[in-house]
């Protein structure tokens, strides 16, 4: 992916750029909002990572200007810690996802992968499959190796998100936001509990696991190699 990073803090910028290069992405970067907007308007990127607070031009204003110029490059919005309204402001201005600073690179990578490939998702699909696991979105049925699996509505939503993002790592916060609409850090093991229950239904009886834990990052559903 060709990624533009607009970030004024040197250490954060180096950290993210190093991570992006390590993951095989090519990058451009700007250290203030005005340069950032100029770059975003000139070249076609696969994704833009945009800090909320920037010298010269605020990240939110940059994002609005970009969308006003009919440029729909996926944008990952970096918001300040404790910025209660930043998320809503960012999404309203046209951001595709947001991430609260400070963050681990793995979290950023997971979210970047999700928004970068979003257009390729076939949202109209009726039947989703991973290996021998099949999901029928119309009849709300799940079958693995020919055996029907009974899922609760939230388990179904969780599995659907995994299948649609198969092969990609989903972080705990991504799951919390997307599946449960939680925009805070729970103090109990909500995600772990529900993942473990889902595993009990789709993996345990079949020997070959599909849902994997990626330590310190999140979870990934993928077909066995």
């Amino acid at each position, binding site marked *: 992916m060709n990624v533009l990073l607009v970030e004024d*803090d040197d*250490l*954060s910028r180096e*950290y993210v750029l190093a991570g992006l290069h390590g993951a095989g992405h090519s990058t451009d970067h700007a250290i203030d909002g005005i340069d950032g907007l100029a770059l975003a308007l000139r070249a076609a990127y696969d994704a833009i990572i945009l800090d909320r*607070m920037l010298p010269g031009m605020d990240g939110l204003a940059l994002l609005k200007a970009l969308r006003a110029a009919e440029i729909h490059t996926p944008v990952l919005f970096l918001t*300040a*810690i*404790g*910025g*209660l*309204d930043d998320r*809503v402001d960012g999404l309203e201005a046209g951001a595709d996802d947001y991430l*609260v*600073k*400070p963050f*681990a*690179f793995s979290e950023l990578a997971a979210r970047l992968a999700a928004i970068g490939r979003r257009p390729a998702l076939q949202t109209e699909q009726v039947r989703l499959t991973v290996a021998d696991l099949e999901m029928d979105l119309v009849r709300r049925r799940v079958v693995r190796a020919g055996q029907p699996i009974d899922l*609760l*509505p*939230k388990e179904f939503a969780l599995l659907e998100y995994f299948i649609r993002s198969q092969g990609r790592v989903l972080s705990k916060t991504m799951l919390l936001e997307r599946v*449960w*609409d*939680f*925009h*805070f*850090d*729970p*103090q*109990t*093991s*909500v995600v772990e*509990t*529900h993942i473990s*229950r889902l595993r009990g239904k789709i993996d345990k009886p079949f020997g070959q696991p599909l849902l994997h834990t990626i330590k310190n990052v999140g979870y990934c559903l993928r077909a066995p190699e």
Partner: protein
Amino acid sequence: MWDIAFVPLNKLLKSTHLRFAIALTAVFAVIYLLVGWFAFLAVDTELRERVSQADLVTSSGFAEIYRNSGRSALVEAVRSSSERNAPDDSFAWLGTRNGERLAGPALTAPGALQTGDVPGRNLLPELDEGYHIQVTDLDDLRLITGVSHEESDEILGLVSLAFGAAALLTLLLASLAGLALARQGQRRIDAASGMLDRVAAGELTRRLPVSGSGDDIDQLSTRINSTLDQLHATVEGIRQVSADIAHDLRTPINRLGIHLERLSDSVGVDHAIGPQLELARTEVRQIITTFDALLRIAQIEAGARRARFQPVDLSGIAESLVDVYAAVAEENGQTLQLESEGDAPARILGDRDLLVQLIANLIENAIRHSGAGAIIRVLTRAEPDHVVLRVSDTGPGIPVDDHARVLTRFHRLDQSRHTPGSGLGLALVKAVSDLHNAELTLLDAEPGLAVELRLARLRQESPTPETKSVET
């Protein structure tokens, strides 16, 4: 002017302006009636005086005829006078002193009459008006003349009618003018109170209109506006300070996290300091969690989120959260139950994200502190005007004396020091509750703790007034 009827009556009755108008109209009416009564008396006295004068003149005329022309001329004059005039206007009677009639109408009891006012029926049975009579003795003759008060009564009647109509019209006009003034004043007050509601709802830049007339309402509005300016500046200040803190601290915290992650990556997990680095990273995450919670509470308390309030079904949120946490409770050996009372939906005006966090915090608190085997109940009750949310558990509870302290920032009970958490859970619950103008109480669930939240229920928007009247 007639659309005054559309202002609710009970509200109008509380209007200072209307009360003033009513009082003024009442005083006006009393003065008018008193003045009218005196005028009436004066006119009445004057008219009666004129009637008795006219009677005296007639009587003197007859007396002169008697003195100049003698007895038979008087008899003739009285007779011809009686023929000219009907007795219901005026009459003249002539007889002897012992009551024998010589001329004029056949009076019932001429001997008993004396000068003054008498009712007509005492003179002749068919007369019903009041009369003034003049009794004059001329040698052995008695002359009685009488004049009816009918005409003066008619004049008085006309005067009263004109006066009454004028009074009625004046009162009517005064009342309407009063209502119009009251309504105008009420409008300004309504506009002001509506504006203050919007300020309370988070629109801090709203100001009261100032008409420029410099009247008392204007002066009050100007003062309220300058108070609002100060409030706005203070709230902006708080917001700016928290934004500054966030900005100044997030960068170093961010950098610390990055340094630790790099260090951890470069030494590898098997290195001797690996576990210590992992601990340091956990501490950084804890700092971030606490910091985030503190900033959130500060921003919630600033109240600006009210501008984003929308109708929310509280029972729906409770249901979906019980759905999420039932599994977590079960893993802990606890039971999480959902109960709901009253007619759904239990709708309120609020911030969905914050309410989700509030209920989630309460459920998580119960899960973390009530121990294995506990039953946790989440109840929503829709009352006519309120929605009540109650999360209770059968755990050890909190001593009643500590209930107030529990809701303050950072406070954690000594006995729960060993359980994880930033200690800000209930403080955030309190902040979100205050933001929604809700009543938050901690109760003894005997055994266990119950946290009850009471919010104003959102009225169903009804398209027709009929359904509204059925509801209320």
